[in-house]
């Protein structure tokens, strides 16, 4: 569950990226986060992963109030969330296998289980057999799917994606969105930031629309406290 209660984020210098944003995304739901460039989509996602902290208001994720979450508890909290980035954030010197295995190593999973879990994640994104390749040997779409495999390999309860289809063609873009829907179907809470209305219409999922930091459109009333 992700809940924002009257959240404002002001950056040093005075720019307000989010203004009095309130919404609630129940556990197991999927929603799109949309808005024009600079509307505050990335800031909203950063608040959920605690890359940034709210200036005002409360952000609650999986029953944890992030405004009060101490720094030392951040790593354990972040392990509950899988994040997919537009620029993939893969490690170019490590193989596909090593990139996908990284969250398992970080979380202290048994090295014996790692190959099985990595292969399962790669299988889900259709990249089984490319474990030994390096990210730069793959296409943009394949790199994005490695990023998705890395985000889901620990089976997180929440999956966030920031413009995951920004650098891929239309067909690949549909495949990636279908993957998110698939993960949502098995109970993962999914929030995808995108400005491509085509996906929103095709998947028919609720939308959170940001405009100049304000949440101007949100899903059904039952989502709002």
């Amino acid at each position, binding site marked *: 569950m992700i809940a924002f209660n009257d959240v404002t984020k002001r950056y040093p210098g005075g720019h307000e990226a989010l203004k009095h944003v309130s919404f609630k995304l129940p556990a197991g739901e999927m929603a799109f986060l949309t808005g024009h460039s600079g509307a505050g989509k990335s800031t909203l996602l950063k608040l959920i*992963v605690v*890359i940034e902290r709210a200036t005002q208001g409360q952000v609650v994720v999986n029953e944890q109030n992030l405004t009060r979450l101490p720094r030392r508890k951040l*790593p*354990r*909290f*972040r*392990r509950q969330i899988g*994040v997919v980035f537009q620029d993939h*954030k893969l*490690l170019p010197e490590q193989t596909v296998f090593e990139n996908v295995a*990284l*969250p398992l*190593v*970080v*979380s*202290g*999973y*048994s*090295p014996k289980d790692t190959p099985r879990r990595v292969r399962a994640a790669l299988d889900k994104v259709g990249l089984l057999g490319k474990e030994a390749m390096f990210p730069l040997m793959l296409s943009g779409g394949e790199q994005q799917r490695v990023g998705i495999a*890395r985000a889901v390999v620990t089976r997180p309860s929440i999956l966030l994606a920031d413009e995951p289809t920004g650098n891929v063609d239309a067909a690949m873009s549909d495949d990636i969105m279908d993957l998110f829907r698939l993960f949502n179907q098995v109970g993962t809470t999914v929030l995808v930031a995108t400005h491509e209305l085509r996906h929103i219409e095709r998947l028919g999922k609720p939308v959170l629309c940001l405009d100049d930091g304000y949440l101007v459109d949100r899903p059904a009333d039952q989502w709002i406290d």
Partner: protein
Amino acid sequence: MMGIWWTARRTSGLINYLKNNFRVFVRSTAQLTRPAGGAIMTVVAIGITLALPALLYVVTDNIDQLGRNWETRAQVNLFLVKNVENPAALQARLQSLKEIDRIDAVSPDQGLSDFKKYSGFARASDLLDANPLPWTLVVHFTREHSNIEAVQRFIDRAAQLPEVDNVRSDVLWLKRLTAVVEIGHRLVWVLAILLGLAVVVIISNTVRLAILSRTHEIEVIKLIGGTDRFIRRPFLYQGFVQGALGAVTAVLLTTICIEALREPITGLVGEYGSGYRLVGLSWTNAGVLFALGSGLGWVASRWSVGRHLKDIEP
């Protein structure tokens, strides 16, 4: 039942922890060889830095050993006043002292004969009307009292005796040698501290560069829930390994230097009638150097990582 389950879980957790640590250690060591030239230069720089105090330590240790070698054979010559005809009474009195091992009495005739034999002035001494030499007592100290303090105490007391005209000993020379050795020891400490700091600076700078070159990786690891401890680990191993390899290099360099000096020094001390052999780094000293190098490497990387890691956030 719960107890067994809990113990099994904890044991497997510990095994996983150790396995992960071992993998990180191997990986960190392997990463040292990647920019091979740079890593080798760093290790050599650490090696030279550690070798300097190690070499000075070996030199002062050898001088110290030489001094002790002298001390084991400490002796004092008592030249008696001319009117002493028979020193037996004095000899017996002194012999009763606990610090004295034995006393050899050298008669004036024996003294003159030795003088002629060893001084090279045999003809000159023939010109003398009478033997000018007095009785001499050569006092040999016991092994446990062959130290500067005991010898000096004896000299002070012997000089007060009415039968004794003059006291001769190498104690002053030994005092100076001991002072030089003491300065050398202090110098070893000062150098060790200064160059130890240099090792810390070298390794912390290397680790800082390694952190900067892996900023992207650190950001990603923090994003997916990596703790500071997890991120720190490879850098700590890297510092430890660099320090340890630097120490091994220092041991090798010191040994090479000592071996290069061994022959000429053995020849030099041989000229003074000594069979002293140059002593190199012992296994214990090499072990201390290894512990020091790896410990400094660990401390330096811990310090550097602590300083720079908090600045990197996703």
